[in-house]
């Protein structure tokens, strides 16, 4: 049972990390142009 004291907070913390990452990505505009982002990989930088 002592394992629970470690595992449950750990599981929740990992879940919250994922949630935080999603919010961060959304605020950063990563979902603004779903089609374009995929295409931009194909553009070669000249520098």
């Amino acid at each position, binding site marked *: *049972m002592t394992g*629970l004291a470690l595992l*449950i907070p750990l*599981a*929740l913390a990992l*879940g*919250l990390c*994922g*949630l935080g990452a*999603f*919010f961060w990505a*959304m605020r950063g505009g990563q*979902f*603004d*142009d*779903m*089609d*374009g982002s995929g*295409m*931009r*990989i*194909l*553009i070669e*930088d000249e520098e």
Partner: protein
Amino acid sequence: MTVHRPLSGQPAERTTLAIPGVRCAACIARIEDGLAGVPGIVTARLNVTSKQLSVNHLASLQLPDLIAAVERIGFEAQPLSDAGSKSASKETRDLLRCTAVAGFAAMNVMLLSVSVWSGAAGATRDLFHLLSGAIAIPTVAYAGRPFFRSALAALRRGRTNMDVPVSIGVLLVTALSLFEALTGGPHAYFDGAVMLLFFLLTGRALDSVMRDRARDGVTALVRQTAPGAMVVRADGRSEWVRAEALAPGDRIIVAAGERLAADGLVEQGESAIDRSLLTGEGTPCQVSPGEAVHAGTLNLSAPLTVRVTATGADTGIAEIARLMGEAGQGRSRYVRIADRAARLYAPAVHTLALCSFLLWMVLGAGVHQSLLVAAAVLIITCPCALGLAVPAAQIVAAGSLMRAGVLVKDGSALERLAEADRALFDKTGTLTLGRPDLVNLDAISPEHRPVALALAQASRHPLSRALTRALQDADITAAPVSDLTEEPGFGVRALWGGTAISLGRGDVQDSLSAMLTVGSRPITLHFTDSLRPACAATLQRLKQLGIEASVVSGDNGTSVARALQGLGLTAQTSMKPQDKLDAVARLQRAGHNVLMVGDGLNDGPALAAGNVSMAPASASDVGQNAADAVFLGDSLAPVASAIVAARRSMRVVRQNFVIAIGYNVIAVPLALAGLVTPLVAALAMSGSSIIVVANALRLRSAAQ
């Protein structure tokens, strides 16, 4: 790739342009790199999903310069106003955030619940219940807001919608579970409440994404009536002024091929004016100094100087806008099928829960036990599948329609489209392509075709453009000519190796003809505004669907009769916008659900008044904004396939209702008997939701 250049102290401005032609990675690179080389542009960023280009530029660079810069790169660009799109995409973001939170909570609470179901007991079970509560209660407070808001708004107006039973169910179940958790009871339904929110939010977020996509698509297609005009100041300077900033008394220059941004009187120049967007009449009319011209009309042959007499809300178009405002009110009274279902469903569910509570009380079970049973009834009947039944089907159908070239603006449009039983079509631009096509290419001898192309390219007259298109399609390249001049009211003249050549007005009686003269041999070219492809087949298909069609046109009787030969349609002609509106209202009074298909400004009020309306992508901005759905391409076939898809999606929606309610019929007696544990509730809820979504997925090919 964003291009950064140091600002040279001047204030930067931000302009958004719609670029409908963007498709691939190469387009992004060409536009962004191309604009990087234009002096005055600080950054340019292209969004492929919404087909919008956002440019940061110095204030000295004006809108026409930006459009010209994009056109030099080889793309068509249209100015966009910034307002509107921001607030709508904010709604989607909000819903996505709520869904993410609910999803996170549902997973973690379920993890704890599974442990309880698999045998955790005593202190461990109580701890898990408390932990679930600690996750679920903030989640319900945060992710439940969209439902609580909508339910409150409905209750305030004395109505009920699907969100009322959802809100009551979630709140009651959460409160009861909290009580259970605190008193060490055996059953807590936190997982049910959170999972319900997650499923419903998924449906709602998808619904919102679909609306955003369709709206972006339509925005990118919109041809603004006239974004602005070149104003000549008293000191001779000229500058670009947006339409809303024009003032009466301004002198504006309208180049050939431009639309007028305001009403006014011609001061200088003679030209032909195309008024089809306003009146539906295809024949251009000649104007000379002193005559009135109207906003929204197209200047065809020569530049005009116009003194502005009325702008914005005072122009002739404003009358149409007023009619549209009034006509649109009827449609807002439409009640969506989910809310109609909720009107019956919500009272039934609440009565049932109350009855079960009273029944168990009478049987002497005690308040706590009776409340638990009532909560189980509420959660089992909570319209999880009902909430998904409609959006899931409509999103899949709308996605299928989008691939087939129909942008449906929202789910309610699909419902109304399915109910249409009478169709009214505009003629010019709707049944016909709204642009002239050359009939007799053979009349031009092969050696004269390059000369004809050189002349046609020099003019923006619709007939010249049609000739250009026909010749380019035949792989002709233009011959070198000299002394090219465009003569207002006549056409284009030039010299070709010493021979005088001209392309000008044809038969005075026939506005759709032109005269090509090489040396001394005149050839008459005939044009026709041809019907859209698949026109007859579509009308036939509509008839099979039980939809009678007829034509309402602003054009005169003879040209309508000539254009619609052989289609077997009845037509009303020479109709003003008000007449079209009356025609729609008359049919509605006779009990019909009217589908209005039209494109012009003059169709705007009728489009807004129809139970449902469609516009081609070539329509005016007013037409596209008023329509519920926009179809792409030349063919008329999408009109019929949209109706078929809408009807199929409604069939699936009804099946989904039956499935969702069928589940309840089985589960409710169990709940009444007090046999529904949180495990049973969770299984029933996810089971019915999955079946409903799977059923909706059958619509993927609905538009084929």
